[in-house]
């Protein structure tokens, strides 16, 4: 089986610090969720994930954005870039980078759930004929994409993998399993087109979303429950998974 080969020390450099695992649940009503899938080159699939995880075949780079009009920290938008993986038998999205447009939300998502959320601008727009996502950080546009020609889906047709973030915890560096529940009310599939992407800004220069697979946009209530599991990043999840 193929496994990740990224150096944990490199991945963990600058990762968020979690003091404890008691946070949550967090309720995010009325959210808009955009998920866009791209294939990545096979040369990157092992390099961008830690040894605990198995990349998928083909390697998938997933861009996931939330626009949340209500939250304990006020309105915010969050954009994540993830590598799709397996942890043992389970599908998981390993977050390589994230940007949030509300500093309070960014701090809380980092401190409570390990999201490596830096400050920036995240603009998710949805219209009847298209949806757009633009992300800027450090004064530069680091992501722009559009999804065209919405086609209705049923709420059950969209699937979001459980999230894994890497954080410094009281147990040492750990992959933190964040399990948002999405109560989807309305969903559409889109035809995606990537307009710009700066891989270094999303955690690894080898990230290369070169082949568009699919996109969906949904209206949902998101609920983030307290963290239940973490995993050592340096050994396979069968061996390294721990309950908290």
């Amino acid at each position, binding site marked *: *089986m193929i496994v990740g080969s990224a150096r944990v020390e490199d991945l963990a450099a600058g990762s968020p610090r979690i003091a404890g695992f008691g946070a949550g649940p967090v309720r995010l009503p009325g959210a808009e969720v955009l998920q866009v899938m791209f294939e990545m080159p096979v040369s990157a699939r092992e390099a961008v994930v830690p040894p605990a995880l198995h990349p998928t*075949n*083909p390697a*998938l780079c997933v861009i996931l954005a939330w626009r949340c009009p209500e939250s304990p920290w006020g309105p915010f938008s969050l954009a994540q870039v993830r590598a*799709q993986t*397996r942890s043992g038998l389970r599908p998981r999205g390993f977050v390589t980078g994230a940007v949030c447009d509300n500093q309070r939300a960014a701090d809380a998502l980092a401190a409570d759930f390990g999201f490596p959320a830096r400050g920036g601008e995240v603009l998710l727009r949805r219209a009847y004929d298209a949806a757009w996502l633009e992300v800027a950080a450090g004064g530069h546009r680091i992501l722009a994409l559009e999804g065209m020609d919405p086609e209705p*889906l049923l709420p059950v047709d969209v699937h979001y993998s459980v999230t894994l973030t890497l954080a410094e915890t009281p147990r040492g560096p750990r992959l933190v399993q964040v399990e948002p529940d999405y109560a989807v009310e309305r969903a559409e*599939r889109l035809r995606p087109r990537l307009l710009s992407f700066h891989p270094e800004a999303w955690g690894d220069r080898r990230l290369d979303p070169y082949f568009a*697979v*699919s996109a969906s946009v949904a209206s949902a209530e998101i609920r983030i429950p307290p963290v239940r599991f973490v995993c050592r990043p340096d050994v396979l999840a069968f061996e390294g998974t721990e309950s908290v």
Partner: protein
Amino acid sequence: MKFGIFFELSVPRPFRDGIEKRVFDHALEQARVADELGFDWVWAVEHHFLEEYSHCSAPELVLTAVAMQTERIRVGHGAVVCVPEMNHPIRVAERAATLDILSNGRLELGTARSSTWTELGGFGANPDETKKTWDEYVRALPQLFAPGHTRWPGRCFDMPERNVLPKPIQQPHPPLWVTVTSPGTELDGADRGIGCLGVAAASYAEQERRTREYHRRIQSCNPVSSVVNDQVTTLNFLYCHEDPKRAASTGMRMVGMFGLANSHLLWTREAFPTRAYQSLANLAPSGTSAGNPADPYGIPEGICVGDPGRVVAAIRRWESIGVDGINFLLNGMETIPQAEVLASLRLFAREVMPQFEKRDVPARARTRA
């Protein structure tokens, strides 16, 4: 009860020189032994790009080799992917008829539509379309096999009058099946009068429900052909050894490795949201990773791993819920040495097979006009 063996041709990393050849050679030897021992079927999947999990991308060639090396066992496509980007329907008919001739009328023709983005995306196929194209293929194939010229004015292909050659030995055509991964596909098979080739493990209760509903529905089917194939088979693992402890440790290592490889497939639904794919996986839980506290060795319900007595008991239960046949995966990722695989097959044939009624009639005798 009929018994078959089922080839995925999984190849473990590292992909050293010769390892694929060894896996293929092992499979051919297993088929020869299964033929001698009285197994009914050997099936080969069609998968593409699925590193480690399955390197069986040209099953028609594998099955031709099997047919050339065996006398009696039936050879089955488990199954041809009915997606035009992968297999044009005319080529499906031509190859199937050729294989039926070369095997002297021993072909079973399974149909499928692929479940992974890895495969569909690789061929540029639209996941929204695969159920539709599968349906058209299943209606078209009996006509393409029929004597003389035919025309097909269809949606996914349009053929002016042609005589598709050669024609199969079995008349009107080899038995048709559909592989059943997603719950509900067995009803598609029933409605069209074709056999249910289970390729995903299900619990006894779930399989009983599906089998009962399949048999109820097929009574009033609108068959795609002049014959109906009303058989239901399931997929299982087989490792049989006199020592139950050794059977469990060896067999469950295979089950676990195969389940792990299966869980790493990139299912269509995971990458491409669509109404056309409702399942996020295909190997149901009861058969794979979950242990069974009620079993002294933790072997999950229904899995044919154990000493002959345990395997007989499991098959009795499958038989009692109306399953007509069981197809076995004999190895996964080459976790079991070939000599032990063959010993398991021979022990099964000696101790288990005689416990079940042998049907010496060919599969098509179970069809009804």
